[in-house]
């Protein structure tokens, strides 16, 4: 399975988490995702996600003047977004624990065969 396909279900939660650290604008958000290790992630992909998250009332945006000149859209979490992020963290913890258990068990089966 391609990494991008695996990312589909979890990228929303990662974006919500980065926004929770502090207000960000589009480019900044893409750079942070990149810095965290999502290098293969196409930067432009964040915009359809941001639009969707805003439509779902999980994030909100405010226009602020930037040092570069034109106004910039800064994103922050809404109350609903905070709740969704907390839920995501719970779901992710459960999922990653389960997946790790299965993978580690698989490793031990291999070792037994040897």
């Amino acid at each position: 399975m391609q990494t991008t396909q695996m990312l589909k279900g979890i990228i929303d939660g990662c974006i919500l988490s980065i926004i929770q650290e502090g207000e960000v604008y589009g480019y900044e958000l893409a750079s942070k995702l990149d810095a965290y290790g999502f290098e293969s992630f196409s930067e432009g992909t964040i915009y359809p996600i941001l639009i969707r998250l805003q439509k779902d009332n999980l994030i909100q945006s405010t226009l602020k003047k930037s040092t570069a000149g034109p106004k910039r859209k800064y994103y922050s979490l809404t109350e609903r977004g905070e709740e969704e992020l907390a839920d995501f963290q719970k779901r992710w913890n459960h999922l990653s624990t389960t997946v790790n258990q299965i993978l580690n068990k698989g490793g031990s089966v291999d070792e037994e065969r040897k």
Partner: protein
Amino acid sequence: MRKENEKFIQEMRVYLMTKGVDEDEIDSFLMEAEDHLNEGEKEGKTAADIFGKSPKAYAKELIASMGQSHQDNRKFIARLIAGVFGIFLVSQFIDGNNAFSIIELIGYPISTIIWLIALISALRLSSFHSGVRRFLIVYGITMIPMLFTVGVTVLHMEYGTDVLFLSQPVVITVGGIIILGLIANFTSLIGILSSMVLMAILFGSQLLIHLFHLEGFGWEIGAYAVSVVGLLVMMSFQKQVPKTVIKG
């Protein structure tokens, strides 16, 4: 901004507009995309690096998240119809024609609708293509309404009997009001002046044909086509001027 990036922004705007996406949503996204492209440019990133190799596929992904506004689409089409009708009336005035047959009264509105559908389709389908391919798409699609309009004109010349007579002042007043109304849509002096220059070019082509007595359908239809395409350019002009200039 790099030319390639500018092209991306402009084509994306046209494509999203022809897909009926709300204009405010288009503006809001393009503001962010432009900022992203500018920041990326400093690090040597191209539009393809940021938005992927297929801008059309990206646009479709965006549309899926934006939701389309049919009300906005209706506004766009209403303005286009008014514009085409206004241009048609003023062209008739320049031509010295003030009598219309049933064939004209039925044929030209249908031809206008076919022109609109063809132009919107040509804009949408030719987005993100370049060179010969783009030319062939636009040329191929606009041939359909062009042939239809020629057909209506030929039918009118052969079988048309004038049934509606309008005085020249009525034709120019109605046509003029519609065009002035469209020009007044621009909120800045630059927008108004540019659209007036464009109108002068549009009707200039028809005036020249009339003054030099260039006979034949080819010239007439050609001038009509130039006017309609010019109208689209005028409507997209407002969007291409940076907001700060428009407001100023």
